[in-house]
């Protein structure tokens, strides 16, 4: 199974993706998504949808906040999307860290375990459980990540033992620590603790728009944490996430600093008009 997020980006890409840089299959690629809450939630939801509909996986989606609205329009992004496959996604609204830990710790009791575990807004579970700042005590952060890792490793054995050819069980968490005074060092420390147990970091940086088109744009960087760098390289893979004013979502690969845009789209930018050569996409 290739990395889930790369599958998502290709699924929602506006055209053929020429880059063949993928993670080797069956490589452990648990991911931390690091970005603002809206974009992170969007990416996690798309990962759940893609895993359930395209890959036929059972997905467990942990969140404290029920989905009341989303920035993205699934039907607008992928016409013909079979939404009945979304029954493979189970949403779990654990209110507290203790509930969340118990829910994850109990997954070995399930007859039909998930292949993908998604955790939205991990820092909210950690913040609500105690006073003080997250960086004061790193043990709870490590505990959650280690439990997820151990659970995914166990469920992988179960899935393989049953002959279910759905690859390893993986998990994706979104984590955006709001450190006091915006201290980057504290945020980096917390991420470094998480990345002892996760192999991929997906960073979302919002691109300031012109305010005219109504679309929102983020640069997406997929990079390997240290253990995986030997196989994947140090270079981050880049994509561009665009959410149109209609809610349609689109991912465009970025190669050498340039977005790959289908020939039929002429996009006006501050630098000038850009037309892409169709040959680049073939």
């Amino acid at each position, binding site marked *: 199974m290739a990395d889930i997020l790369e599958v998502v980006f290709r699924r929602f890409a506006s055209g053929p993706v020429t880059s063949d840089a993928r993670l080797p299959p069956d490589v452990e690629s648990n991911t931390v998504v690091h970005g603002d809450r809206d974009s992170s939630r969007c990416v996690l939801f798309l990962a759940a949808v893609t895993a359930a509909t395209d890959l036929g996986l059972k997905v467990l989606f942990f969140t404290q906040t029920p989905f009341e609205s989303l920035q993205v329009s699934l039907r607008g992004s992928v016409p013909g999307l079979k939404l009945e496959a979304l029954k493979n996604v189970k949403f779990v609204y654990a209110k507290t860290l*203790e509930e969340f*830990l*118990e829910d*994850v*710790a*109990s997954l*070995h*009791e399930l007859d039909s375990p998930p292949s993908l575990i998604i955790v939205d807004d991990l820092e909210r579970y950690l913040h609500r459980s105690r006073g003080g700042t997250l960086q004061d*005590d*790193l*043990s709870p952060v*490590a*505990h959650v990540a*280690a*439990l997820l*890792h*151990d*659970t995914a*490793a*166990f469920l992988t*054995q*179960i899935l393989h033992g049953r002959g279910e050819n759905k690859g390893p069980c993986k998990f994706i968490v979104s984590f955006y620590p709001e450190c006091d005074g915006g201290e980057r060092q504290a945020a980096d*420390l917390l991420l470094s*603790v998480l990345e*002892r*147990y996760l192999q991929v970091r997906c960073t979302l940086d919002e691109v300031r728009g012109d305010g005219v088109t109504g679309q929102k744009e983020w640069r997406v960087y997929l990079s390997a944490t*240290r*253990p995986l760098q*030997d196989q994947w390289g140090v270079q981050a893979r880049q994509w561009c996430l665009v959410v149109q004013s209609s809610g349609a979502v689109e991912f465009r690969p970025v190669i050498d600093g340039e977005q790959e845009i289908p020939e039929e789209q002429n996009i006006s930018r501050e630098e000038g008009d850009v037309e892409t050569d169709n040959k680049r996409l073939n």
Partner: protein
Amino acid sequence: MGSCLLSVAEQLFKDLQRTYTQTKHIPDDLLIALRFVFGPCALQALDLVEKRSVKCVTSPSGRKVFQVLGGSGRLYTCYSSCHYCPCPAFSFSVLRRNESLMCKHLLAACLSQAMGLCQQEQVSDQQMTHVLSGQTEANT
């Protein structure tokens, strides 16, 4: 801590398992290597192993976890697939300062597993859930 040091540690455990299975004894060169890689906590960990302080807890689902009885009498739950211990030394020396690969509890669990010196305990799947979530200890 680099991934190469982790690889060295894993190889050490494999060498220890092979040697101890045959001789029931840890040769001096392996002891020196353990001390070199893990620092002072190597001897503390071996002390815990000698006291049979490590318990492998399993449940009918096949889930497995290790519990280590520390010198203070407190039980620490360590997972089988990755490095984590709830003790203050792990939080400080490993997570915050990145000075050590493991704390003595985690190292004792790895050594006990390699040497086949874990006590065994079976619990129900529900009890395992409580142990894994950190809510309760299996049996103190």
